[in-house]
Every structure is written in C-alpha cells, then in structure tokens.
C-alpha cells in the first residue's frame, strides 16, 4: 500500500537537519507552500541554504526564515521584490550569502538534477558577469556557458490538489517552479490545498507525477 500522506506539516519536516539545502516552490506569492515554510521556521533547524526564486516579502514565508536568522545562503534569481526588507537588511549587513542565477538557468539546473543530466550549455549569461569562472564554448557560432545540476536535500512544494500517491495538480500560474523542484530534491514534501481520493485527478492533468513526491500534507489553515 502506497500512502504518502503525513498528518501534519510539523511531522513532515522532522528530519530536516541544520545545514540542509531546501528548495521552496513558488513565484512571488503564487504557489508558495506557506504552511510548510512556517513549519520549517518552527522546526528551527538553522544554517539553511534556501533555493527559491524570490526571498520573501514583509514578514511572510522565506522572509520569516531570514528574520529568525535560520538561513546562511539564498540561491535565487530575484531576491528583492518590493518589501523584501529582511533580505535587504541581511544582505547589507553581510549576514547572508547570495548566489544569483538567471531564472531560466535556475529552473533548468534543477530540471537537469531531476533528469539525471550532468550539465548543459546555455546561451544565457554568455558575455556577462554570470559567466565568470565558468566554462564557455562556441557552438555553431554562438556563445554558451556550461551550467551544472542543482539539487537539494528537501523540496517544499505547493499544489492545488494531491492524492495519497503524491500526484499533484496546480491552480493556474501556481505551478511555476514546483514541478522542477519536486524532481530535483532528495525528499519532496507537498503542501496541498485539497487532498483528494486516488483516481480523482485527471490523469492527463497531473503536472507532477507521484513518483517525484515523498510526502503529502493537507493544509491546516495555520496561516
């Protein structure tokens, strides 16, 4: 019997050790696993590397992890949205490390990790600071940068619906980074708005097949 359901956000994250690399899905405030992030904050493991497109705004989501000084390093494409006060403060203090990656390269590096590839040549960033220290090559007259897979110990993702096998379906643009992160991490934990019965999801609309997901938790309304 395959049953990936976990009773609570807290229980789904008990094995996150200090120093872990944690991917967090979402873009802006869309498709963000807010309840899992809050549970991660309460769990309290520090020295984290957070891999997520943005770095949180106000006191919400990743911003709360930053405020509580649980994060050593942020890997992202766009850390400063309007209101990213905690990221900006820590950055100015020199209290946080930033690895900035062009957004497409960021997504593709995670996909490469999930797809078992050793790296890829992308034209993005060629001839810019982003290519510094990296292998570059001309292919058919165009410049490319070699980029490597990006994996993590955990991925926290958010879906609209999920079943006990870990199949996930997303709402509108809430999909964004969630599918590639689910592929790329050692352990993928999914926060779902609706836990549905096996067979309730349209098999043609499952955007994350259950094989990529290890744990499924229904939202608790904790935010």
């Amino acid at each position: 019997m395959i049953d990936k359901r976990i009773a609570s956000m807290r229980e789904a994250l008990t094995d996150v050790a200090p120093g872990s690399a944690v991917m967090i899905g979402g873009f802006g405030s869309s498709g963000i696993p807010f309840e899992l992030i809050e549970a991660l904050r309460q769990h309290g493991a520090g020295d984290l590397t957070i891999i997520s497109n943005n770095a949180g705004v106000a006191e919400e989501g990743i911003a709360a992890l930053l405020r509580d000084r649980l994060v050593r390093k942020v890997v992202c494409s766009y850390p400063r949205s309007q209101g990213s006060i905690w990221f900006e403060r820590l950055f100015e203090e020199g209290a946080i490390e930033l690895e900035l990656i062009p957004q497409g390269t960021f997504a593709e590096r995670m996909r490469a990790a999930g797809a078992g590839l050793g790296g890829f040549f992308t034209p993005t960033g060629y001839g810019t600071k982003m290519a510094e220290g990296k292998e570059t090559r001309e292919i058919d007259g165009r410049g490319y940068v070699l980029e490597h897979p990006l994996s993590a110990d955990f991925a926290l993702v958010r879906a609209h619906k999920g079943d006990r096998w870990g199949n996930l379906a997303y709402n509108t643009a809430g999909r964004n980074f969630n599918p590639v992160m689910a592929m790329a991490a050692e352990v993928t934990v999914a926060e779902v708005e609706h836990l549905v019965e096996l067979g309730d999801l349209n098999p043609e609309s499952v955007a994350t097949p259950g094989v990529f997901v290890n744990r499924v938790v229904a939202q608790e309304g904790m935010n």
Partner: protein
Amino acid sequence: MQRLTPEQMAERLAQDIPDGSYVNLGIGMPVMVANFVPEGRDVIYHSENGILGVGPTPAPGTEDPDLINAAKQYVTLIKGGCFFDTAESFAMMRGGHLDIAVLGGFQVSAAGDLANWATDNEKYPPAVGGAMDLSVGAKAVYVLMRHTTKDGQPKILDECSYPLTGAGVVRRIYTDLAVIEVTDAGLQVVELHDGNSFEDVQAATGTRLLPPAA
C-alpha cells in the same frame, strides 16, 4: 527638448508590435505597452512565471491569488491562454519562440549591449530574474527607457559601465526623445519625437548617433 511621458513612450512602442505577435513585457514601464496595442491586433502576452495569454487586471474581489504576472501584480487569463511550469516557460523564451521582448534598461551601448540588472552599488542586492534569458532568446529585444538618468546623465553609451544583461542583444531603443535602431553601421535614429532636433538628441547621448534619413 520635448520629452514623451511614460504613457506616450509605451504607446509609441506599441505601434511597432505586429498583429499575431507573442510578446513578453518586462517589469516596470514595459508592462504599460499592453494598454496601447492598436485595435484589431491580436497580441499574446507571455509571463515568465508560466502564462501565455496574460489578460487585464481583474475586477476587485475576483483576484486569483496564484494568477500574477512577473511584476507580482494580479492578472487574468484571456480565452485561449494556458499555463505551464517555469522550465517550459524559459524553454519558450530561450528557444526563440517569442517574437518580441520589451525590457527596461539602465544602459545600452553602441553595440547593442544591455545593462539592466545590477548597478555598481555593492550594498544593494542585484536581481536578474528572466532578463538574461529574454535578452538572448527573444527574436527581437526592444528596450523602453528614458534617454537620460534622473540627473541628466546619458544612458546610451559607447560601452555600458554597469554589468551586462546581454551582449549585442538590443534591436531597438525607444526613449522619451527618439527611436533608435541598433545596426551594423551604428546607432541609427529612425524617429525624433516632435520638436526634437537631431543635435539635441545627440547631445543627450553618450555615443555617436547616425542621423535619420532625410
């Protein structure tokens, strides 16, 4: 000198978006372009977070919290639009499937280099988002920006002093003073906004411009 307002700049650029185009509008002034596309043209807007067919702002109270654009503003989906994940969204961008990307700019060089993601202030965190992927991937990159900085310094230069977003990627520059095309021969002024002389625009520019055809 006559300076166009941001709305006028966006409207001017919108005239050059052909019917049937797939277009990505960057954060800031570029998103205003959507408001000015001439009637009768079908234009499909792409948003990097996984939307093709971005529609107008929703009526208050009807927002879908997951349905936002790259600037994190609530949007809608037009009929015929669809959703996909970020990897596929950037495959579209990098793979040459979008016709036009309209980007903001800090600086553009004579060779069409674009700088729009970082300044030389080390205390202020850089943020690149999808700009680098768009700049290498869209079939045409149009930059929409003021001709000069707030304190009057030129933004169109021999070389960019800020870190590059992409080298040799800009096709056209739409400013509040003029429309300029990046050509092999140099920066060709194709249009001077009403009341501006070539000499005035040249004086506000940090590199040599080619005058418009007589």
